[in-house]
């Protein structure tokens, strides 16, 4: 496994020697990896930082915290520093207090004696420390599980509805011949050009009249039929050989059965792509839920996260940690469904 990975990562043109194109390719790929995963990595590492570590300058990549020791005679743990003494020797001392440019310090081994040290002579002793509290606190104080459940319900239900109705529309638009078919298709594609901000108010009115405000249906239903989804599925279904559908008709299958047993299984790659899109849209959707979900108990995660961002103060440590948690489901869905994207199973079995 490791050997195979190493071999993959050192593959070269023609198999031997490092041609300059190999170096260029790897450099290019490395920049790409850095550009794409750098911010994500920084986010994850920062989510483990304490609020003070987040604000320090210069920023560090890894979550570091200053070491602290308990010294006899002092009720609070004291921060630890490395100090260069006047005679040139280096010692580790705990700081009792700082007064102007001088610090009063104590050696943990000799708690009775205090030493005065200029502040520029000391550097903090730091070590790797993960502030797990960033993750655990919101789970207890902030009602994270409720928002997670709301987001999950919206994402799963909306994706299922989207797949169902979009595939039915795509089936009709790809398999049947009827008057007005191209007009219908053009209409569907035309709606791609209308941004959500333009229809926000009218859709809000419709949702209000239907009495959906402050229920999850207000988020689920309006976006269930997507022109992107219909178009994507239709284009894929057009590639399914016509003979298969006719063979099923000869086999006395009803249209519903052809849809369910022949066309849907063969459209799996396209359905997987649409499922990934739908999950991403729904999970990250912000503007529309913000407009229709006013009560806290129906908030989805992105809106709930917004609560950490106050007018005067932003709780970055919680915000970052919860953002990481929010990213996980989409990453998982992608990991599971991505193999469908590349597998075209519709073309085997013919000829």
């Amino acid at each position, binding site marked *: 496994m490791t050997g195979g990975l190493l071999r993959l990562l050192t593959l070269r043109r023609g198999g031997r020697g490092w041609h300059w194109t190999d170096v260029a390719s790897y450099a290019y790929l490395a920049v790409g990896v850095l550009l794409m995963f750098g911010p994500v990595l920084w986010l994850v590492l920062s989510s483990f930082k304490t609020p003070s570590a987040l604000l320090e300058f210069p920023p560090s990549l890894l979550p570091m915290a200053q070491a602290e020791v308990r010294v006899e005679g002092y009720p609070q743990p004291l921060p630890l520093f490395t100090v260069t003494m006047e005679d040139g020797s280096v010692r580790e001392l705990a700081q009792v207090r700082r007064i102007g440019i001088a610090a009063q310090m104590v050696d943990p081994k000799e708690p009775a004696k205090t030493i005065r040290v200029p502040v520029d002579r000391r550097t903090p002793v730091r070590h790797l420390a993960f502030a797990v509290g960033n993750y655990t606190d919101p789970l207890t104080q902030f009602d994270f599980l409720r928002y997670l459940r709301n987001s999950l319900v919206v994402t799963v239900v909306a994706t299922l509805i989207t797949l169902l109705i979009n595939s039915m529309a795509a089936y009709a638009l790809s398999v049947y011949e009827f008057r007005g078919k191209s007009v219908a298709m053009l209409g569907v594609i035309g709606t791609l050009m209308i941004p959500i901000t333009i229809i926000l108010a009218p859709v809000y009115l419709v949702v209000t009249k239907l009495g959906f405000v402050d229920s999850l249906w207000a988020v689920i239903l309006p976006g269930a039929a997507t022109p992107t989804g219909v178009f994507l599925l239709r284009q894929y279904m057009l590639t399914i*050989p016509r003979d298969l559908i006719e*063979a099923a008709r*000869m086999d006395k299958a009803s249209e519903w*059965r052809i849809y369910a047993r022949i066309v849907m299984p063969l459209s799996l790659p396209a359905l997987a792509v649409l499922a990934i899109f739908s999950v991403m849209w729904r999970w990250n959707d912000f503007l529309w839920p913000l407009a229709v979900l006013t009560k806290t108990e129906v908030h989805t995660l992105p809106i709930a996260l917004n609560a950490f961002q106050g007018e005067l103060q932003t709780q970055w440590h919680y915000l970052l940690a919860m953002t990481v948690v929010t990213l996980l489901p989409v990453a998982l869905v992608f990991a599971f469904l991505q193999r469908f994207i590349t597998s075209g199973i519709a073309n*085997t*079995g013919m*000829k």
Partner: protein
Amino acid sequence: MAGLELRGVRKDFGSVAVLKGIDLSIADGEFIVFVGPSGCGKSTLLRVIAGLETATAGDIHIDGAEVTRTAASDRGLAMVFQSYALYPHMSVHQNMSFALENMGVPKAEIARRVERAARMLRLTDYLHRKPGALSGGQRQRVAIGRAIVRDPKIFLFDEPLSNLDAELRVATRKELAALHAEIGGTMIYVTHDQVEAMTLADRIVVLNAGRIEQIGTPLDLYNRPANLFVAGFIGSPRMNLLPADAARMPRDNFLGDAVTVGIRPEHVQPCAEADADLTVQVDLVEQLGGETFLYTTALGCPGDLKVTIRIDGQSALARGDRLPVRLRREHLHLFDSAGLACRPDPIPARSHA
């Protein structure tokens, strides 16, 4: 099992008329082959019978019942597609049982029928494979199996052998003939391969440009083509079609109104100079071992008159050689100016056929 009756069937695609009035009657248990050049409408005719296309005019009766407007799924026919159209996501077993499930046949009965068809087609070992894991010949047999399990009123085959290699095609052709002998269903088979047509058919329907040119038994079509098209289409190499005055034959009653004389390559015989109807110059010799084809040009005739000659056995003739030939009188086919065969046939030996 059922008979089929077509009356005045027409099919237009927009302004293009593909079928221009087809009348056809097929008896129960017959093996009928539709043959014709590309674009003659033979596949369209099959699809109209299947119900995958609706006829623009005319009507279709299966077993005496009118089905012109009936949906394909309700006609009770089974079809084998040129592409086989096996469901790629289902196993061989599921492919064969799909139709039976749709018909609501009990599970035990489905298992029994699939088992029987699989045994008949030697597919028992492959029942759990997906079509992608089968060879071309096996896929072909699955497609046939899918039709057999249905026990349909009529089997429809749309060029089922055209994707197989030559050897497999011959083998599968024999199997199809054996299958028809065994289950005895009414079968309609579309092909452009006249060997398949000649070997499989009880009766052949020759189609050209949306019309039926002739219907008859294979030998009937070979021996008594009704018109120039059928004469030229059936038989390989093609029948020689010569202007009546090109052959140095006495212009007597024998030729009558005929303007074209047809003669098959095997009926053109090398002969002595004195008996010759024509003298030809050899352009190309094809030695097949058991027989030899000579492609020649007739000398002393206006235009470039090509004559094909078939000789039994092997020949020493070479390109450029001259050869006097005689056309065997009892095998001449005479056609009038409209391209129709001159009937009554002036050759008494064939008249009773």
